[in-house]
């Protein structure tokens, strides 16, 4: 059995919520606290845990060279939210496009996080400022975007007519769509405008 003072100092420092001065340790442990600290420092040297003094106060900490062990990188595959995928689609079809334009097209405000997620995913990048009052930032897609979605170029994105043929336009809106087309004599042209 090791000297009681060393064991007691070890236990007190281990259980302490803060680093402790020698006097603070003495309020728990009788005996030669300084000698015990010196003994412990030697005993723990080179272990995964070490005893260190900072500004006269002592505490245990994990060895600095093991910092990488204490963090684990976990890759999580996550699906884009509905807002995220809609925003991405608008950027892809209309780039370069400002945040205000995205909001105008979606009809709802775009949360700050939505564009961040798209940029974090590596699919969207800032694409310079538009030379209009306020000089808003525009956004465009990246080469990684094309890769992820298996597109050789943005021209591979189906146009409105293709979407209609695929039944991807909401039927209710479709009826309305037909009306406005007849009235204006204009074909779905927006997808080519970017």
């Amino acid at each position, binding site marked *: 059995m090791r000297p009681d003072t060393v064991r007691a100092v070890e236990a007190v420092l281990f259980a302490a919520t803060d680093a402790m001065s020698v006097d603070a340790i003495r309020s728990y442990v009788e005996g030669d606290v300084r000698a015990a600290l010196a003994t412990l420092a030697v005993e723990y040297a080179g272990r995964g845990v070490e005893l260190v003094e900072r500004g006269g106060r002592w505490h245990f900490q994990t060895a600095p060279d093991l910092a990488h062990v204490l963090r*684990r990188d976990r890759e999580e595959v996550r699906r*884009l939210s509905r807002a*995220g995928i809609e925003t991405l*689609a608008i950027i*892809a079809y209309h780039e370069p496009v400002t945040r205000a334009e995205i909001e*105008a097209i979606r009809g709802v405000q775009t949360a700050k996080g939505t564009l961040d*997620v798209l940029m974090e995913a590596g699919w969207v990048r800032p694409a310079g400022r538009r030379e209009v009052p306020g000089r808003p930032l525009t956004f465009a897609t990246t080469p990684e975007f094309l890769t992820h979605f298996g597109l050789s170029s943005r021209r591979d994105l189906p146009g409105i007519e293709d979407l209609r043929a695929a039944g991807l336009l*909401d039927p209710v809106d479709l009826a309305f769509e037909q009306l406005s087309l007849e009235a204006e004599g204009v*074909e779905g*042209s927006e997808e080519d405008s970017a």
Partner: protein
Amino acid sequence: MAAPVTDPPEQLTLDLDGWEGPLDLLLSLARAQKVDLRDISILALVEQYLRYVDRARVIHLDLAADYLVMAAWLAYLKSALLLPRDPEVEPDPEELAMRLQLRLERLDAMREAGARLMARDREGRDVFRRGAAPGLRTVRTATWTAGIFDLIAAYGRVSARSRPVMHVVQDREVMTLDAAIARVSALVGSAIDWRAIEAFLPEMASVALRRSALASSFLAALELARQGRVEIRQEAPFAPLYLRASSA
């Protein structure tokens, strides 16, 4: 609240609040009788319990109903044990006595176990965990995923939702100059004879787009002529315009 289990039975306090029910009282009486519950005399125990309850009633203590029920049951057990065994009577009183004893043993065992549990080195009282563990970190890196169908469907959804707004801000469909130059230069390259400029226009249903294409193609023809790549011929103002590849 601790039961004075070491007291002789006659001196048990007549304070029924101190007992957690008749079984508790019985166990205390039994423990006072003998250390090993397996060797107690059930008959003696029953006698002690009945005497205890009688004394409580004499001094007008309010006895909870379950003490009286237990007393009645024990009185029945006592008489059954004393009377000659009647094989017709079920259940066998000896077995009832054995079961009562087992019940007392069980409660006693759990009481003992509880005491031993509480006496262990308990965390936060006897042993302590690290006071300021920084915790382990998990750095989550999200890999986002979405399919091409999700993307297209999302655009369809957005479009269907907002087309009227879109028409206000969108330009009409046009053929750009670049597109016209590309088209005209490609088509004229294979033509040796003069061909009307209309022949270079794409087949289009839309009048507006056809008009845009004609204008763009005309400009394209001028540009290509300037570069010396096509020749242009027109008989008179507003007459048909003919193009062919430059002979140079």
